[in-house]
């Protein structure tokens, strides 16, 4: 039944496409992403690399002078130790409170779960100066709880906002919700059927958790711990609000030291760079361990 009709006006033929050069093809592949790549390169990658280079710069090429000076200062060493201890403490608190909470919320019905998620979202994003102020408003010398407890006769002396305890409490306000939000997705890994299968095999609740639940969830919980640790050592706004900058810092933290040097010391860029690179190294190491943990965890699933 087929007859060949000559190609004529009205039939559809593909227009002859010019062969594109290698350059044109390359542009087509990368062009739409170029603005983003430029932003990443110029505002994230390059600054980081610059800081690394600057931390090793001396008058005549690469040197460890700056590192020696920074690590030689007792104040800086104290700042490093305090930052790490603070990070570990906050991460641990966030995990202990956050893990059961994430579990419970992950099993709620959607409507109440949504309410909690909204609340957690707000608390996780409510940081910086605002949170520092709120902390003072609650537990400062004229704070609401302070006055309340004192008015009730209890001789309550609130922890100084700039003390270790004060910072820990304030950090935890955002860290616990952040931990919960980060680990709720992982809670969905535990399938209801595993608990049912364990029951039919006569396991108790504790045996289920010990032999199945905890081993399966641990990598994700540990991952959450690492993320909160990384986040905490880099916090600046809350710390600044509570402990002040400008040379009168009441507690030594790496981030505060960086801010301090930048604000007051015109020639301190090099030392600040060392501290910055130190933070970078800790955070990167933390993230590498995090990815490795997750990859190992997912091999079972």
């Amino acid at each position, binding site marked *: 039944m087929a007859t060949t009709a000559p190609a004529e006006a009205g039939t559809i033929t593909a227009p002859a496409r010019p062969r594109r050069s290698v350059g044109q093809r390359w542009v087509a592949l990368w062009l739409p992403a170029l603005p983003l790549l430029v932003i990443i390169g110029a505002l994230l990658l390059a600054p980081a690399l610059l800081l690394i280079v600057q931390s090793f710069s001396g008058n005549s090429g690469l040197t460890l002078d700056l590192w020696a000076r920074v690590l030689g200062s007792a104040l800086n060493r104290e700042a490093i130790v305090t930052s790490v201890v603070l990070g570990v403490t906050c991460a641990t608190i966030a995990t202990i409170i956050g893990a059961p909470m994430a579990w419970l919320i992950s099993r709620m019905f959607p409507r109440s779960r949504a309410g909690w998620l909204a609340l957690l979202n707000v608390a996780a994003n409510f940081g910086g100066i605002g949170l520092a102020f709120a902390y003072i408003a609650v537990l400062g010398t004229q704070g609401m709880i302070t006055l309340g407890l004192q008015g009730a006769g209890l001789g309550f002396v609130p922890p100084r906002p700039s003390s270790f305890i004060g910072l820990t409490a304030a950090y935890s306000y955002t860290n616990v919700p952040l931990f919960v939000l980060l*680990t709720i*997705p992982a809670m969905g890994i535990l399938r209801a059927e595993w608990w049912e299968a364990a029951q039919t095999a006569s396991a108790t609740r504790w045996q289920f958790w010990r032999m199945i639940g905890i081993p399966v969830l641990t990598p994700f919980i540990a*991952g959450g711990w690492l993320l909160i640790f*990384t986040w905490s050592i880099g916090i600046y706004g809350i710390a600044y609000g509570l402990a002040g900058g400008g040379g009168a810092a009441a507690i030594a933290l790496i981030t505060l030291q960086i801010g301090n040097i930048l604000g007051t010391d015109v020639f301190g860029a090099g030392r600040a760079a060392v501290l910055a690179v130190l933070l970078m190294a800790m955070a990167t190491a933390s993230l590498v361990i995090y990815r490795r943990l997750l990859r190992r965890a997912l091999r079972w699933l």
Partner: protein
Amino acid sequence: MTAAAAPAIHRPRSRLNRRLATQVFFLLAALYFLLPLVAVLIFTFAGRWTANILPDSYTLDWWAQALGNPDLVGSFWTSIVLATGTAILDILFVVPAAYWARVRNRRLRPIIELGAAIPFCLPYIVIAFGILQLSGIVVPALQGTFLLLMLGHTAIAFPFVYWAVDAAMAAAGVERLSEAGEACGATPIQIIRRVILPNITPGLVTGSILAFATSFGEFAMAQVVGRGVRTVPIWSAEALRSYISAPGTFNQLAVITFITFALLFVLSVVIVYLNRSQTVRLVPGAAEVGEAERA
């Protein structure tokens, strides 16, 4: 995301105990989260307040003062404009890149994901410091400007936008839609405008809101990079340092903090509502977990 249903419990009494403990736990948690908010709110209305858990007197003065304070109001609008600009820029930069990474150039993906890991690896103060140094060498004219700060915010907020938009694209099956569009004879621009964008709207909105929130409350970069820019956190930091000498500043600070909080709350509700059927990806690893579960 699956929410595992609670297993059937057989002993009514232990079930009741556990339910009760859970509810008490959540009551305490709710109180804990709302406490600072309540305290701040009371501060905005407090007159004399020296001895008890509640103020001795109440007043609306602080609200009037705050709203009439040009410095404060100016910083509020600065932050709004800054955050909005950040959100817009992020969407403009991220959407084409995310789309192209899915549909045309697979090699883009690891590069973008590596870039997205940087703001998690590096504290904002470190990035801010780096930008300060780099801009000093390359574009000294931009130092301390609004533009540079906005670009900085765009860079640190982009991971949130990327995760949100990428998740929406995955859920919508953007690769399949593009192929169908091409088979129908549409150009890439037409496909993006008529097919892709309408189908990823929740992701776009979520991403914008996350970028907005990140920029609005960000302090480190505003202090270091945006030296000439007065945002709400900058104003707040100054108010916090000086409240002893200038009474009333503290209460105005309470007002702006409360307004910020209320704004955040509304935005969070919108985000949760838009994403009620899926988990919101916030971090690299958690993302893979969510995907594996959904697949």
